[in-house]
């Protein structure tokens, strides 16, 4: 008969001590503790299939009772080799691949790639094209934040917020579908403008969205963000100081929630954002509540930009110099945009051909996720879920 006790112990250490010295651990990650009889700590595996990890993410959590001691994310479950595939695709084919990075900001991903090509080949964009870019980017931001809000409520147990958030999101998705034929993987922007001109119903639909959202944002705040249960669960949770946020390279709502005023649309303006009047909301303390409120305020500011843009929407061509194949001259080029999640950067090294030699995405979610271990230590398991929710992660962007 086998000695079940020692066998069980062997099984446990085998399944959780996967970070053995054979696989090189990145610096700073601690190994599991030696098998200590008196230790009350144990490992729990959250994911990769889990309702709250926003994708396929595996987080190995070391718990002491209910308190998180260490939370180590394990990536790679949705790695598809997009950067490698990009080396054999032309620049226009790469645009359709970039949809699938962070699928909730597909337009912004397309835009960044187009901006690199425009920068390299010195292509100008007509005014109507620029206005389309700004309006569509802000609609994308609204759509992404509405989904984030709905999922935040759902993660915390208030399941109804999911459906309310999606109701307004459907209006925006209808605009996208009428404009380019797809709701998620849009493949819309091209170097020099956009692939198709917007239909006639575009501006009336955008005005409809603005009025619908203005009526309903206050209601959303009352339902979730001013609720005492929500306040108790997010205030003081996941405190992130300015130094931490900067040193881990966080951007977007995560960085602004800690009080640092950095928004690519203001600090490094692209497209025609410098012609619009909007504020950048900042948090004070850097806890989860601040991050949530920053994103709710960003929705308000997006509405402001949209209101200004629809009034001044010009006529004219939507794309300049349409071409099928772009040949970038030899060299390296970089451009960045403010996606709903943070700073997305695209770095292209070209050797003169129609396909890039190397295409690198600087993904905002990767840096935002890296701060998880730092800010979740000492909180409870339920807070870990809340913190991951407020970091606003989309996992395919991390794994690419």
């Amino acid at each position: 008969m086998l000695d079940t006790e020692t066998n069980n112990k062997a099984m446990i250490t085998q399944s959780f001590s996967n970070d053995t010295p054979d696989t090189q651990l990145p610096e700073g990650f601690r190994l599991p503790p030696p098998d200590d009889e008196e230790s009350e700590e144990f490992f729990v595996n959250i994911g990769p299939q889990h309702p709250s990890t926003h994708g396929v993410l595996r987080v190995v959590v070391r718990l002491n009772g209910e308190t998180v001691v260490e939370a180590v994310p394990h990536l790679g479950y949705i790695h598809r080799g997009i950067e490698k595939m990009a080396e054999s695709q032309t620049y226009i084919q790469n645009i359709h691949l970039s949809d699938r990075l962070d699928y909730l900001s597909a337009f912004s991903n397309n835009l960044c790639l187009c901006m690199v090509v425009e920068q390299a080949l010195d292509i100008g964009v007509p005014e109507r094209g620029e206005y389309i870019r700004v309006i569509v980017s802000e609609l994308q931001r609204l759509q992404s934040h509405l989904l984030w809000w709905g999922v935040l409520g759902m993660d915390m147990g208030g399941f109804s917020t999911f459906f309310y958030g999606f109701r307004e999101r459907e209006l925006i998705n209808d605009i996208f579908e009428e404009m380019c034929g797809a709701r998620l993987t849009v493949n819309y922007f091209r170097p020099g403008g956009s692939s198709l001109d917007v239909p006639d119903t575009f501006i009336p639909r955008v005005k409809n969205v603005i009025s619908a959202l203005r009526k309903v944002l206050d209601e959303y705040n009352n339902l979730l963000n001013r609720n005492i249960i929500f306040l108790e669960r997010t205030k003081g949770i996941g405190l992130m100081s300015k130094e931490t946020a900067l040193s881990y390279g966080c951007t977007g709502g995560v960085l602004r929630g800690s009080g640092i005023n950095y928004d690519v649309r203001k600090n490094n303006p692209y497209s025609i954002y410098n012609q619009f009047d909007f504020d950048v909301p900042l948090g004070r303390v850097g806890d989860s509540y601040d991050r949530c409120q920053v994103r709710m305020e960003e929705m308000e500011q997006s509405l402001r930009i949209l209101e200004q843009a629809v009034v001044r929407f010009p006529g004219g061509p939507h794309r300049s110099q349409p071409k099928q194949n772009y040949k970038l001259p030899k060299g390296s080029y970089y451009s960045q945009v403010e996606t709903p999640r943070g700073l997305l950067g695209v770095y292209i090294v070209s050797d003169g051909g129609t396909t890039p030699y190397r295409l690198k995405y600087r993904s905002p979610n990767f840096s935002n996720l890296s701060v998880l271990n730092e800010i979740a230590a000492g909180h409870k398991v339920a807070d870990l879920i809340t913190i991951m929710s407020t970091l606003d992660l989309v996992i395919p962007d991390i794994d690419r």
Partner: protein
Amino acid sequence: MMPSAELYPVNNFIGDAVRSLFPPHVAAVINGLIALLSLMALVGSLGAVLIYLERKVSAHFQLRFGPMRVGPHGLLQALADGIKAIFKEILKPEGADTFIFFLAPLLPVSAAFLILAIIPFDHHLQVADPAGGVLYVLGVSGLSVLGILLAGWASNNKYSLLGAMRSGAQMVSFEISLALLMLLIVMLSGTASLRGIVLAQQGTIFDWWIFKLPFLGILAFIMYLVASTAELNRTPFDIAEAESELTGGFATEYSGIGFAMFFLGEFVNMFVSSCLVTTFFLGGFHAPLFGLPVIDPILSLIPGFICFFAKAFLIVFLYMWFRWTFPRVRVDQLMYLEWRIMLPANLLLLMLAGLFVAQGWAG
């Protein structure tokens, strides 16, 4: 034995008919069997109705329709769910304690049955009426806690154990609040038997305990709702089954009929809890009379059990409303709520109630 020739819409004619046909002891046994069978029928049909109702109500809160295909407007959905649950394979995880593993789902349902036996649905629709009815309820509701703890332990699964432990702590704490609130009602009514409590609320709608005393009743009602929501493991206190955290909680390892028993147990317990709320605060089977001579005679024609069920389903709706609106509370905040907010408030209310009773303003 109460005389059966009373002027109420529903008479005890079944009991009288049996007693007129058989000798007393046989009649007692037959009456007992009829009561048990009717209770089982009630629980069975309630389970189906409540499951369907929860899905439809949650759908309408969430801007959608719910089941619409199985039968007109999805009325046969509960039947389909039941058939599916019966046909599923019953799995037992390796290393699970067999006897306890299969015993655990039966305990919450049994607790629900036992409490239903003493609830006064109408003047003569009560299976038994012990003099210490409230004590009996408190004792039996411990069975539900036991069921959950046993389920978590016997599953041989870390997640189940965590969920069961949290749930056990939660339920035990809130039973204290429940006991204190029931004590309040007993003090006001002067009797611990449930029928006595209902009879003490005789009269108009303003004689119900929720309305009779200046805001004492409403405060106690709200606190009772909060405490019973925590007892039932429903959102905002559903940490035991928090789907988005530790998938499945104490019932992770159960499949098929075992899981269906837990599910059914939760819904029937919800109904039982709302029956208790109706009995304690909303006047039980008394019709809502207003003291106006115009409509009172019409209202008093409504059979008692219809009034009772209407009130009970209103409270069930309240439970569902809370579930689909509020996010979840964290475990330590839950304990904070009980020990540092509800318990002091309960003691304060008890003091006030004692004052009222001493002044003779109640019952």
